[in-house]
């Protein structure tokens, strides 16, 4: 190896350049700078870390060899969902998200970064049309964080400190909500699910909804896939006691499902990963929170909001931060939400996706998904010992499949399916023991009839 290593990512690592800079500063080495650190706190020796792999080619081979140990939903047929979904990613979306301009920008002012602000504004605007709500935040980490944010907002709006959550929401999201919501909402209660339909048990909601409850949160479709069509009744019950209605809604359903604004949802939230963002082992998430543009709700957003505003040139669109301050006594605990780097790039991607799809694309994808999932459920139900769907409410892309009649556990079934290059549905037996040996199957527009038939065939063979 040469005496001094020169790095492609560090132009000044060339010895002559370094020497020039040291001379200009008037020091003999960088040690003169690090003299600010007490000697006994200095790390001596070399870090015990792998590398270097200096050549780009060798680096690629190294990492690709590791990635080769993965199986994926392109090679296999996957039926997993639960918050990360295998939806189609249009090339134009990838092209735009890859652009260095967007990819490597950060928090520049809306002049040199004007394009990013406009792209973000357009994303928020497209989502707003799906929801029919006027105010949408810049994306937060994911659905769990969005739901947690929504209930904290509800606590501030209502001045109350207890939350009610439907029994059929995602257990992982519920954990996030409790973690994040704790300081504002120390009490969480559950509203039962009707075991037949999978819908929210309205009687139980009525019984548990009191004047102490800040918010009722449910998901639509529910975590178990049921499409909740009692939205207006839910809203009536909750609003009747002065509470806030928060709902977690997958935006890809909104070409065929009603806008939540029309059935009494005050705060909508969810994940935008379905809108053209690759799964990336769970790294494609982005959370949205939306309300109407009314002071009571708008003022409780913790996030940055990008607003369109005029510049000194007539007719030109400029952007800036919309700033508002919470001043009500109920929201006196200021700065109780933190801001930071979240998931903006995915917002831009989702915006491009929605612009490509338009209303017709959204309707078609929704209709097609519902047809495919209905088809699969029917085929599975025809198998001996298998019941699908377990819940009777209509479903969008996910539904519960029960294997109790087969004598096999979901774990056994999924293991066998793996050998046939199929990822079976998520095992629900620990989270929802009342459902027995059940799994959550997810079907999207990427599944062909061949894919669905392959699953049915594989199951028929093994059961």
């Amino acid at each position: 190896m040469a005496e001094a290593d020169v790095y492609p990512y560090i132009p000044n690592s060339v010895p002559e350049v370094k020497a020039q800079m040291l001379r200009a500063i008037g020091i003999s080495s960088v040690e003169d700078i690090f003299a600010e650190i007490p000697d006994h706190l200095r790390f001596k020796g070399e870090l015990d870390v792998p590398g270097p792999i200096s050549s780009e080619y060798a680096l690629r081979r190294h990492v690709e060899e590791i990635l080769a140990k993965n199986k994926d939903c392109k090679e296999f047929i996957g039926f997993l969902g639960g918050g990360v979904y295998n939806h189609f990613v249009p090339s134009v979306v990838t092209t735009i998200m890859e652009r260095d301009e967007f990819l490597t920008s950060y928090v520049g002012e809306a002049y040199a970064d004007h394009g990013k602000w406009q792209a973000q504004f357009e994303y928020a605007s497209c989502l707003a049309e799906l929801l029919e709500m006027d105010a949408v935040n810049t994306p937060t980490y994911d659905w769990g964080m969005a739901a947690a944010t929504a209930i904290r907002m509800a606590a501030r709006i209502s001045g109350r400190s207890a939350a009610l959550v439907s029994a059929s929401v995602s257990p992982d999201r519920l954990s996030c909500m409790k973690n994040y919501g704790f300081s504002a909402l120390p009490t969480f209660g559950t509203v039962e699910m009707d075991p037949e339909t999978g819908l929210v048990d309205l009687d139980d909601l009525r019984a548990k909804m009191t004047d102490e409850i800040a918010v009722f949160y449910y998901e639509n479709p529910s975590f178990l896939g049921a499409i909740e069509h009692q939205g207006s009744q839910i809203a009536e019950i909750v609003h009747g006691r002065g509470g806030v209605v928060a709902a977690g809604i997958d935006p890809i359903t909104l070409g065929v499902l009603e806008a939540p604004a029309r059935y009494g949802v005050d705060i909508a939230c969810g994940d935008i990963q379905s809108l053209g963002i690759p799964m990336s082992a769970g790294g494609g998430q982005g959370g949205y929170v939306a309300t109407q543009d009314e002071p009571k709700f708008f003022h409780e957003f913790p996030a940055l909001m990008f607003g369109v505003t005029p510049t000194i040139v007539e007719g030109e669109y400029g952007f800036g931060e919309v700033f508002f301050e919470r001043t009500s006594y109920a929201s006196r605990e200021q700065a109780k939400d933190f801001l930071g780097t979240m998931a903006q790039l995915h917002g831009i991607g989702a915006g491009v996706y929605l612009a490509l799809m338009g209303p017709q694309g959204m309707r078609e994808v929704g209709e097609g998904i519902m047809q495919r999932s209905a088809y699969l459920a029917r085929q599975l139900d025809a198998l001996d010992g298998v019941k699908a769907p377990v819940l009777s409410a209509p479903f969008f892309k996910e539904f519960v499949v029960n294997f109790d009649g087969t004598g096999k556990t979901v774990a056994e079934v999924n293991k066998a399916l793996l050998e046939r290059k199929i990822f079976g549905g998520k095992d629900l037996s620990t989270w929802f023991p009342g459902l027995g040996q059940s799994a959550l199957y997810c079907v999207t527009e990427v599944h062909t009839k061949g894919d669905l038939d392959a699953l049915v065939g594989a199951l028929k063979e093994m059961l």
Partner: protein
Amino acid sequence: MAITKVRKNYHQARWDEPMIFELSTPGVRGIIPPAPEAEIVAAVGDVAGGLPEGIRRSAAPALPEVDQKHVLAHYLHLAQETLGSNLHADMSQGTCTMKYNPRVNEDLAADPRFAHVHPWQDDDTMQGILQIYYEFEQIMKAVSGMDRFTLQPGGGAHAVFTAASMIRAYHRDRGEAEQRNEVITTMFSHPCDAASPATAGFKIVTLMPKEDGYPDLDALKAVVGPHTAAIHITNPEDTGIYNPLIEEFVKVVRDAGGVCFNDQANGNVLLGIARTRDAGFDFCHYNLHKTFAVPHGGSGPGTGAMGCREEFAKYLPYPTVEQDEGSGRYYLDFDRPESVGKIKGFLGSAGVVLRSYAWAVMMGPKGLRETAEMSALNNNYFMELVKRIPGITAPYAEGHRRLEECRWSWQELTEETGVGTDDILRRVGDFGLQHYWSSHHPWVVPEPMTIEPCETFSKEDIEEYAAVLAQIAEEAHTDPEMVKLAPHKCAVRKRAAEEELDDPTKWATTWRAYKRKQGMA
């Protein structure tokens, strides 16, 4: 030798671009989703049509209807109107460490054997990504000296929040949760060191700096006590000043029964130079989208890698990534009864971890050290050039050196000319440079500017930036209007009505709100 050039003739692309909604014509299609096969349709019919009223979509969403080429062109125009850090010497965004984001890492993340992985797949089918998580955790342990890491938090503030949740659980288990309700931080630490623990339910006590700009140990001693849950402190602070008494700070808090968290958002300059554990800390975090060369994405996705000592590991969010000693097989451990639960879905931002791993192994131990040394050297070279500009000062730490960045003050120039830092940062954009970061609020340093020339910038980049600042300082005297009305060469001109952004009858965060408030159809 490369030349140093101030881009006097620069102009950003200026497309005068309409909103995507203004490019919409009813009936136009941008992309056709795959249709289900005829047999499926025949078998089930119009399923969506059978939904009960009240949940069936009653009015089509008013999304734009634009053909594919025009969608692409529109967003390419917006991209050209955005100044990503890979395009220029983005030393502007101080504390953000805007280093080069290697393209090879993007190619790796696009590999279908990563992009098409579902995080709920059987562990045996995810050995690749689990190995990367495991090995990267080992790298973080070596860099920091900590015993365990979680790679789930979605950003720095999130990592700080996760630590605060774990610290809360720790005190709860010792029966001291009620009593220990205060978290201490400093004025020059990152604001999330206050905001995140506040979200976790703590009272926040912030220490003012001493007159020389250093954190005040006596102030700490005056407030630490039985109410102290933790200290959350950034070192070096956002001023670029390293706190030589950091060990004493830790000791004072430990002696009082509190836990110590080190925010290493500015840790780029300490790689291989100093480890947070050696100063006695219990917790720390690094921003992978800063120090580990992962793109910032316009503000995410990112990751705050949070580390802790073994004593606290039981509280880590689930799942953790483990390796079976015998078989070498990697697996996810969900069986963690004392975990604080989930703070983010699934495994976190896996793409960020993948890119971080790739960068770290490419650099190796010497490369990491070179990174740290060069960020210190680059900053001090920059300071050497900039301190000569009349009207600018580097307050505090007289006689000491900054590490990787400096918070400057334009106060002198402002008093002489009336041109302030917000004018100067807008004018910087006219030279093909990003508008620089001033400071978090409230401004302790008046008319602030925070610049971080990390290791991927060249000597010429630094000279260019300093020359631009010198020119603008000159303009403040000779042609102040030029600066005050900047930017002139960016995609758009200066905002004309800032007050409307505070006015509920005027502000609009979506197109539909805008149309409504402007009285458009």
